[in-house]
Each structure stands twice: as C-alpha cells, then as structure tokens.
C-alpha cells in the first residue's frame, strides 16, 4: 500500500557537514535519500523502513569529479548522466560509462546516483561489476572523519554493507591504470532500459602475444553480492589462451558463482550465460593479442 506523506519527515540540511552531523546525532535513525530512484520506489510500495529521511541530493561536495594524476575521484552524488558525459571516464573507464547508459531510461539516469547504486546493494546493480573490475576504492565520511577502503569486500552479504550508520559515501576512486587494457562489459536482460539484468559482466585484461598478463572479471546477478571471479582470474594469469584454457575458465567461472532461480531468470540460464560471457571475453583478449 502507498505510504502517506504526513507520516514521513524529510529534511535537507544543504551541506555535507550538516548532513553527517545529523546522522551522527542519532545513528541509524535517518535514511539518506539522493536521487530517490530506489528510496521512492520503496516508499511508493509502502516498504520504506525509515520514517525520517535526510536529503543529500545535489550537495555540491558529493557532485564533483576530480581528475588527479593517478586516479579519478567521482563524487558519490554524481548521476549516471554526469558519468556518461565525462570525457576522461568515457576514455579510461568505458565500462562504467556503458553501465550508466544501461541504467534505466534517461529520466532515471538524470536522478540515480552511483552512491545510491552502491548502498542500495542490489546483486543485479549494473555499475557494480565495473567498479569491481577497475579496483575502485571508496571514501566514506562521518563526523569522525574520512576513511578509505577497497570497494571489493564492501558488500558484507545480501543487501548488507560495511557503511556505518553515521557514514555517507563521499567519493568513488578509480585508479588510472587500465587505459591499455581490453575491456568487455555486457548486460544480459530483456532490454537495456527499465529491465533488471539477468547477468551483467565487466571484464578487463592484457595479453602479451597470447599469454594472459593480467585479468579482472566481475559479474552481477549471479550471487548475493556482485562478485570478482578471483579463482578464475588466478588460473588464467600467465597462461596461453587456447580452446582448452577457455573451456577450463568457463567451468571454473560457473563453479565460483551462486546463481538462483527468480522471477527474471533461472540459475541454469545464468550459469550458462556467465560461462559464455567469460569465453566471449577471452576470445576478444586473444584477438587483441593477434592484432
């Protein structure tokens, strides 16, 4: 049933400092709302756990994109449109740009934020495999100060994160060391806009001739949290790409994931698609080595 607005409080403190100050006064009581594209859907369904909301939409401190020598610091309040329109992100982190392009329609991209996608923590979220593949780090902020941690491991379990109740994500840091890599991102779903992925993958790698020097493969919608296929990666490093390696990688990838049957797809289909996407990526990598 729809929620009644008179039962809810919403405040807009207007600055990052004031917002974390409010969170600190009674940790866990206030729910941040950025673009609202997840929160307002829960609200519409009468399923919003919190009655007190604090708006962090459009806070300037969360909306900057800093291009530093060794990394890009992307404010957590940047929208998908901000990401799509940024030249350096498009050139050096194309899989994040593609994910932004696949996230709902244009209106959703104008409001939905990267920070919201991370904290909403859907296993099917489209930008999260790209963040994993690019070795992103997060800067979290509270009145206690800032802390920086790798994004890998941020999701402690289904819809659980390492964010403390008084913290916000301030920025997402992307290391600028993947420009020479082959990248391959795919969203497999009924359609790109307005359809949740059945499987999404972001993979990058580098070969010398046919030998795999480095490889990162991340997949979404195949486990309670977005996953890096670390065992498959480990097995691939230093090996020569050939048919038997590709089929061993497919098998290993399928063994690493824990897909389920749900309204969108089946575990069997997801496993088959994951294997095929890994193979597709390795074939691209191999073609790059021959070019």
């Amino acid at each position: 049933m729809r929620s009644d607005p008179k039962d809810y409080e919403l405040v807009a403190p207007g600055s990052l400092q004031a917002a974390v100050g409010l969170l600190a006064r009674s940790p866990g009581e206030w729910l941040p709302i950025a673009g609202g594209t997840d929160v307002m859907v829960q609200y519409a369904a009468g399923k919003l756990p919190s009655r007190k909301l604090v708006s962090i939409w459009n806070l300037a401190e969360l909306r900057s994109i800093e291009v530093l020598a060794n990394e890009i610091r992307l404010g957590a309040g940047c929208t998908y449109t901000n990401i799509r329109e940024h030249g350096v992100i498009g050139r050096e982190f194309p899989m994040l740009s593609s994910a932004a392009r696949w996230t709902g329609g244009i209106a959703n991209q104008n409001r939905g934020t990267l920070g919201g996608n991370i904290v909403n923590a859907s296993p099917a979220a489209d930008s999260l495999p790209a963040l994993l593949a690019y070795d992103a780090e997060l800067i979290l902020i509270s009145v206690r100060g800032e802390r920086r941690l790798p994004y890998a491991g941020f999701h402690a379990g289904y819809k659980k994160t390492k964010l403390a109740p008084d913290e916000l994500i301030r920025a997402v840091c992307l290391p600028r060391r993947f420009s020479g890599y082959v990248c391959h991102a795919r969203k497999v779903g009924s359609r790109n806009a307005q359809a949740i992925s059945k499987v999404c993958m972001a993979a990058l790698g580098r070969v010398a001739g046919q030998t795999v020097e480095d490889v990162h493969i991340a997949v979404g919608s195949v486990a309670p949290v977005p996953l890096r296929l670390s065992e498959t990666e480990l097995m691939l490093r230093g090996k020569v790409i050939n048919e038997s390696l590709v089929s061993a990688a497919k098998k290993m990838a399928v063994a690493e994931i824990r897909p389920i049957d749900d309204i969108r797809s089946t575990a069997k289909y997801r496993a088959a698609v994951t294997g095929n996407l890994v193979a597709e990526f390795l074939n691209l990598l191999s073609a790059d080595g021959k070019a």
Partner: protein
Amino acid sequence: MSSSGEDRSKSEISFTVNGEQKTVLAFPMERLLDVLRLQLGLTGAKEGCGEGECGSCSLLMDGTLVNSCLVPALQAQGASIVTIEGLDASAGSQRLQEAFLECGGAQCGICTPGMILAASHLLNKNPRPTLEEIKEGLSGNLCRCTGYLQIFEAIATAAGRETAASS
C-alpha cells in the same frame, strides 16, 4: 481539509513552474507529481505506474528530464520546473506537436506529455538524433497504444524541420 496539526509538519516549498514563482505548503515527502496536479492544477503530468517505470509523469527540473512520481516535493526547493503546459508555446515544441499529429504519434494521449518532454529534452541535447538515439532518449517512456514507430517518426520529422528552420 488538513487540520492545523498536519499543517505544522508541512513546509513552505518555493520553485518556479513554467517561469512563474510559486510557493506551496506541502509535506516534504509529498510527490512533486501530486503537488503539481492537486495544488497547482497542472494536470499535464500523468500518473501511470507511480514507480519510475513509465515516464508519463515526466517533467523538466533544472533543464533535465525527471519522473515526478519519484521526486519528493522538498527536493524541488529552488528548482526551475517546466511541465508540458509550459513547453507549449516554444517553436520547437510546436514543431514536435504538429509532427505527433501528422505521424499519428498520439492515440489515447496518456503517454503524450511525457513523450513530448522526453523528445524535447533529447532534441535540446542532440538536435539531429539517429533512430537509435531517439529510441534511447525515449526508452523510459512507455506507450500502450501506438507501438512506438509513429512516435519515433514524429520526432525524426520534427528534428528535420528544426534543423531546416535554424539553418
């Protein structure tokens, strides 16, 4: 109808709508869609799904397309809002509306205000879109009547005339 007790938890929220400064008294979590329709009588934005999927509640907020069913009223504080009612007069919008009529881009009309706003947002950013770009620009706007082809054609037609008119 609201009691004075309720009024106390309402906030004054100010924004411009179609160029006019407005101040409303609303619950901060009221949907912008409801404030526009029920308080300001701007019924061009429609409610289809109420959950961000259909685009019939589209409007422009600070120049960008948003679904007003997902915008809490307080987040519109200080914003500049354009609804279909305000888009009406511009030359570009006239061309779009004429093209929708000619190409059969509107049938029942529920999706049409959102379609025109999404199209106008697209043409502002990209005056000469390809068919793929038109499809992408409108991918968040659903239509149960036309089958979309007429809508895509209308936008391509309007874009052609736009370019002709400005060159």
